[in-house]
């Protein structure tokens, strides 16, 4: 009988993983420890090795599926054991029966899904059901309410739906990656130039029309069409007045749904051809996608899962669990800038790129030693505050997959150069997603450098269950009063968020003051 390989616990506390890639196919011979699949969990991509040597019998999930830990991922005919010749053995047939059931279920739910979709488009007869308050909100947010899919009873469009749609539209048109991962997401250790959005402009009617070189667009003033047809036209981004038709009703040109769809498809094809011609070697997604619909351009749905969802869950938990208070201040870091300038070439000689971050980390640790309340977590179960006598500092890092916080352990015991190289390495790993779960865990305090992208103050969200996070603004030359005179100085803003359950505002301010002393005069760190 085949060995059923269940998705193991790929990291502590991980309940499920998304199957990203299969490295094997049924019939493949495999060795023990050979990689079967790549699974994206909680925070990282994990290779799942085979526990046995043998032949792959059946893959139970498809790429893109979310697999709960403990579910059978793959069955393997183990070498040396007898492969069941007869699938009709009791066990196997049971398994098969289960499969069939699962399959029908899946088919059913699929059918349900399509039905539900059908509902949305046709049953409402071209009408959007939404309260006046939701309509008004849509107008305020510049959302065409006809394009919002409703989550309320019967498909009613709620205020939440409108907001979600507005946010979606916004994130589609602003940045393509590093989307709003809470306020800390802006954290990047290097300034990343924000990429220009490549696409995702709503398919304006005019736009489609001008592109559609191969489809003869009609150009009527007025066209009869049922509301349902108009809705479909709206969805596929077609102006009914442009849809060619010979049919008339009451003497007016009449267009039905089929005509609209036909025209939309023709336009799509034409547009795809245009794009191809324009882009040459650059493969246009629309041309290769299975069914390029204009709807897909108007809005795009991405599963909320994996790293994105982890970030979201984490932010949500933090924000809703820990009452945040943020303390803002400014510090003259001219001394720090000079110190770094001085040390930079030395570091370079050893092949290390010295940033400000290691200095800040050292300063933070020095201040934490004076204010241990900020190097804590709250054990809610036991009603105890856990004071950490070690200093593991997480540094928020923007990656393509979203925000990650790699942790540098024992910062108090490491020198600037070591911190620098460790941090650079961790950031690199986070970016190419080779970072291990261990390297993302165990932090006691976090730093986010939102200033790297630009911004004076932000409200960092605490990396729960830690109780404090330091946000750094950009270092800029500003007028500064020193000894009664206004002089240009290098000034940095800092924003410290604390969990007010554990830490009080006065303490936060005191910590910040101490931290600023170290930043102002880094030579103080030598005393550490």
């Amino acid at each position, binding site marked *: 009988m085949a060995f059923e390989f269940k998705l193991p616990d790929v990291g502590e506390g991980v309940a499920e993983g998304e199957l990203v890639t299969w490295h094997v196919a049924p019939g493949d011979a495999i060795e023990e420890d050979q990689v079967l699949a790549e699974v994206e969990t909680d925070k990282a991509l994990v290779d799942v090795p085979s526990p046995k040597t043998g032949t792959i019998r059946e893959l139970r999930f498809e790429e893109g599926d979310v697999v709960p830990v403990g579910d059978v991922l793959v069955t393997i005919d183990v070498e040396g054991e007898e492969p069941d010749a007869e699938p009709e053995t009791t066990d196997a047939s049971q398994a098969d029966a289960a499969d069939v059931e699962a399959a029908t279920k899946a088919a059913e739910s699929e059918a349900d899904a399509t039905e539900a979709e059908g*509902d949305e488009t*046709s*049953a*409402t*007869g*071209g*009408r959007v*059901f*939404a*309260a*006046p308050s939701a*309509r*008004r909100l849509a*107008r*305020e947010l*510049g959302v065409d*309410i006809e394009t919002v899919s409703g989550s*309320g*009873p*019967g*498909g*009613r*469009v709620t205020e939440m739906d409108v907001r979600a749609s507005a946010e979606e539209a916004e994130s589609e048109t602003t940045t393509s990656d590093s989307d709003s991962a809470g306020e800390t997401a802006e954290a990047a250790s290097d300034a990343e130039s924000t990429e220009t959005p490549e696409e995702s402009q709503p398919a304006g009617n005019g736009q489609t029309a001008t592109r559609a070189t191969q489809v003869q667009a009609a150009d009527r003033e007025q066209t009869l069409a*049922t*509301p*349902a047809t108009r809705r479909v036209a709206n969805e596929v981004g077609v102006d009914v007045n442009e849809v060619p038709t010979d049919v008339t009703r009451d003497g007016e040109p009449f267009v039905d749904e089929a005509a609209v769809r036909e025209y939309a498809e023709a336009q799509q094809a034409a547009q795809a051809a245009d794009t191809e011609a324009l882009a040459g070697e650059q493969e246009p997604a629309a041309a290769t996608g299975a069914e390029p619909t204009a709807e897909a351009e108007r809005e795009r749905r991405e599963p909320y899962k994996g790293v994105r969802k982890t970030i979201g869950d984490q932010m949500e938990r933090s924000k809703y669990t820990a009452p945040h208070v943020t303390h803002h201040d400014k510090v003259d870091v001219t001394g720090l800038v000079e110190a770094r300038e001085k040390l930079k070439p030395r570091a370079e000689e050893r092949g290390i790129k010295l940033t400000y971050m290691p200095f800040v980390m050292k300063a933070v640790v020095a201040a934490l030693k004076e204010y241990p309340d900020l190097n804590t977590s709250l054990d809610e179960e036991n009603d105890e505050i856990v004071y950490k006598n070690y200093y593991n500092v997480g540094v928020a890092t923007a990656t393509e997959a979203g925000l990650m916080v790699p942790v540098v352990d024992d910062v108090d015991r490491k020198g600037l150069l070591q911190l620098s190289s460790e941090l650079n390495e961790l950031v690199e790993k986070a970016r190419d997603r080779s970072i291990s779960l261990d390297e993302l865990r165990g932090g006691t305090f976090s730093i986010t450098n939102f200033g790297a992208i630009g911004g004076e103050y932000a409200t960092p969200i605490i990396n729960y269950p830690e109780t404090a996070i330091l946000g750094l603004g950009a270092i800029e030359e500003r007028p500064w009063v020193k000894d009664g005179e206004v002089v240009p100085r290098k000034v940095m803003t800092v924003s410290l968020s604390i969990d007010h359950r554990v830490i009080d505002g006065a303490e936060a301010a005191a910590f910040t003051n101490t931290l600023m002393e170290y930043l102002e005069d880094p030579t103080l760190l030598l005393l550490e």
Partner: protein
Amino acid sequence: MVVGDVTTGTDVLVIGAGPGGYVAAIRAGQLGKDVTLVEADAFGGVCLNYGCIPSKALISATDVAHHARHAERMGIHADPAIDLTGMVNWKDSVVRRLTKGVEKLCENAGVELIEGRAEFVDEHKARIVHGGDGQGSETIEFEHAIVATGSRPIEVPGFEFDGTHVLSSRDALSLDTVPEKLVTIGAGYIGMELSTTFQKMGADVTVVEMLDDALPGYEDDVARVVRDRAEDLGIDFEFGLAASDWERTDDGMVVRAEDEDGEISEFAADKVLVAVGRQPVTDTLNLDATDIEPTENGFIETDEQCRSGVESIFAIGDVAGEPMLAHKASAEGEIAAEVIAGEPAAMDQQAIPAAVFTDPEIGTVGMTSEEAEQAGFDPIVGQFPLRASGRALSMNDTDGFVRVVADGDSEFVLGAQIVAPEASELIAEMGLAIEMGAQLEDVAATIHTHPTLSEATMEACANALGKAIHTMNR
């Protein structure tokens, strides 16, 4: 007033102080605009002075007498006398109170009121012409203008309004005695409301209508309830006749009407009331000074935001198109003001209710079943007859029904038709249901006060779901 021309400036010039104009002016004032409201005749417009309010005042007053007179079954024996002069005086006091109120509200919102007729000089300038010649005029420069000039009754050729024999609805609301014999031309809502009232006052009313039923535009079963009641009251209906002319006689007048074969019928009368519809007023405005081109029917065409084709000019209310109803005018007034103030407002309401204050009343909102079907829905209908309503029985008024139309798939409420006492009030709930995207269950499962007519609405919704308690479920 100063003789000669004076020029002043304003952010928003509102032309016409009916329910469209005065509401627009108040809202614009609330939003911090410098607003000038110009009215050529009477603040409050048709609605407050010659329309909704006075007609409803007379209808309600008359019903007091009517109910008392027909309450023998309830053990009341009375023969009230109607003193029309007294009634009209009371009605005028109501109107005065309301129109004064409108002026106060405008002033409180910082709106400057000007009496006079506004006509466009160009798309940013209007001249205010004051009554009489040689009064001088002033010119107002405006950033935006809102045209709210309303509508006036349509005249039937051969029946020019003279206020004594040939009456407009406005004249009819200010008579000092009840005519013995009244001929009403037109069985639309205004004709039906006034005919019913005069019949109840003691007049002998004949309604002459070109089409073959009363209340054209309403569903047959809805109109039938009202027509039957009107006939019970003693109103004669003459359908399929077009009024052609009239003549004075020794004891009044004779009204002639012609059927489609050219056959003439004659009706003796003291007065004839012409209520064949209303037409938009644009000829007071010198629209030629702008690029606005009224439609074939005389309306100023507008978009969802009440904008006319001309950037600086908005139009609202009766002059901006059907339905010519006061609440539509007011809603548009708010929208226009908000849009001018830069807010993202738009007339995107799903339904505009309408009420007819006949006996019983009619209230409708949204789609009929047929309209829903045409719009691509698969409608389901629920109905509740008033004779099954405890409240209707206890009011001794059981003709009519509440009908609700919903989408069969999603069960969203799409429309309602109510013929019942207080239908004008009952319809509000269904309007809210439609705007909120309520489903039948939402209304059916809302607890309604007992004993009230509103329970009929709840039951109609339940009926559509096959679970009404007090009527057979289909």
